[in-house]
């Protein structure tokens, strides 16, 4: 069974978001997404200070099989990116919810979190996709 931590929120496009106490949030791709992609060989990170609208393309993950866009689940300004991924994209494969985080954002509208999926809803979506 693929890991779907309860405390995170999810986008239908397979990103997770973890909101910290200070109102900033970490964003990455899910366990399911990394498994579907296979071994990652390259990650294109967003630029720090760039401002995204919710659903906007924020980067690219590339594996031996495919390249796939990463979308920012929420609007906000990029505070930091996980530079470790430049040399070690495999961190996303080995620890998608931890060391494999992709970027950190300052949310401009916390209401948007309500539009995202809960762990249960995301699990349901995966079950449907699996049909």
């Amino acid at each position, binding site marked *: 069974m693929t890991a779907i931590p309860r405390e995170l929120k999810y986008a239908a496009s397979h990103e997770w978001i973890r909101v910290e106490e200070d109102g900033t949030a970490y964003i990455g791709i899910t366990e399911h997404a990394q498994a*579907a992609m296979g*071994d990652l*060989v*390259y990650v294109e990170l967003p630029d720090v200070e760039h401002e995204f609208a919710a659903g906007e393309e924020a980067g690219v993950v590339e594996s*031996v*099989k*495919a390249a*796939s866009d990463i979308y920012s689940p929420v609007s906000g300004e990029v505070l930091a990116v996980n530079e470790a991924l430049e040399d070690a994209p*495999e961190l996303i494969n080995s620890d998608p919810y931890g060391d494999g985080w992709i970027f950190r954002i300052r949310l401009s509208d916390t209401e948007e979190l309500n539009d995202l999926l809960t762990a249960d809803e995301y699990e349901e979506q995966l079950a449907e996709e*699996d049909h």
Partner: protein
Amino acid sequence: MLIFEQGQPGRRSMAEAPGGSSAPLDFPAHLMRRQLPRFPEVSELQVVRHYTNLSRKNFSIDTQFYPLGSCTMKYNPRGAHRAASLPGFLNRHPLMAETNSQGYLTCLFELQEILAEVTGMAGVSLTPMAGAQGEFAGIAMIRAYHQSRQDHGRTEILVPAAAHGTNPATAVMCGYTVREIPVKADGDVDLDALKLAVGPQTAGLMMTNPSTCGVFDRAIAEIAQTIHQAGGLLYYDGANLNAILGKVKPGAMGFDVLHLNLHKTFATPHGGGGPGAGPVAVASRLLPYLPTPIVMKSKDFYRWSTEHDFPHSIGRLSAFMGNAGVLLRAYYYARVLGRAGLLRVAEYATLNANYLMQRLVDLGFTLAYPTRRASHEFIISLSPQLKQYGVNAMDFAKRLLDYGFHAPTTYFPLLVPECWLIEPTETESLEQLELFVAALEGILKEAAEDATLLKTAPHTLPVRRLDDVKAARELDVKWSYGEEKTRST
């Protein structure tokens, strides 16, 4: 072992050395070479053995079945090559006068006419040197069209999720933003989503029909109407034209511009063996923008178009007039097959795909779009096999190599998990298709009995399972003199 790693300093093959000509004497001294170039220093026999052995490792359409289909390797009839290699064509200089090139220009003019007829379009330009360049030309024409009407607010190109990866890339290259339109579970474009997406910002839609899902979009007339009503134009990616050749014309579906991959549909070289050719065809409203030159016929004289013929052209795309040899091969192919023959291409491409599809269903494989008739290609998903035996699409593909078949396209399109995209093409015989079915039956049995056999395949090829990740991360494709010692062999 590379040829550089063989041989000894000073070893020569004098018998094959070029002789009879002496170096021109009027080169300035500072341009003359002071050291010999670093060629491999090997004997004639070493060269012969090296390249003969390499050629024996080749896996080619001349030796084996390639279910990758026209996407990578369709059979090219020998006659086309022979015709294009006639001395009159081969030795013709691209800048030769029109008066001395009437035969060549006749061929190109007629090819333009044939392609216009096949696609239902008003005009054709043969100059794009590849499918990607044809796409670029096509979208550049859409752009030129909107600009000529002072319609500057159209900034968006719509692309269905089942599109070829080159489509969004082309749109971006031409300065557009891309908006993806989802595809429904049955493989057709989501018409409701399309209707919500169109607007005054819509410059056009890029579509492949039949799509990468291997199905013909049944709502194409309504899609075309939706785009046209919004003021956009329709671009047809001709990659899958094999399936509809002579059956239905993109012009009749409502498309305004398209490119053809001659290497996919008209049997010209492909797969790294190019060069390619990606002619563009347009409906009458885009005629003024065609890339030049185009072959024109005035009375009985064939000539290249000038800027006076097409003052609004998007311009030239190549130094000369497209890839002459490739265009000649396509012309020969179309003329040899004729109208009836081209129709048979579509019929057999589709029949072969549907036959193979049904045979694989009989074996228990799962179709990605079970309710749909295949076009010239179809998709199976190996997800059930992955669940049942722990063997994925790549393991199946690698094992297939041991059976003497090339693998189909794996893990594409991205919409379908663990997928194989299978395209037999029109040139494969029933017997050949049955051999392929028998191989898959054997592999399916192996998956149930001994999954390791698949996971460690291939077992019979010069190289075993390669490290894809290492290859992508540590690209090593060049030979550097003086580093021989540090290389591991």
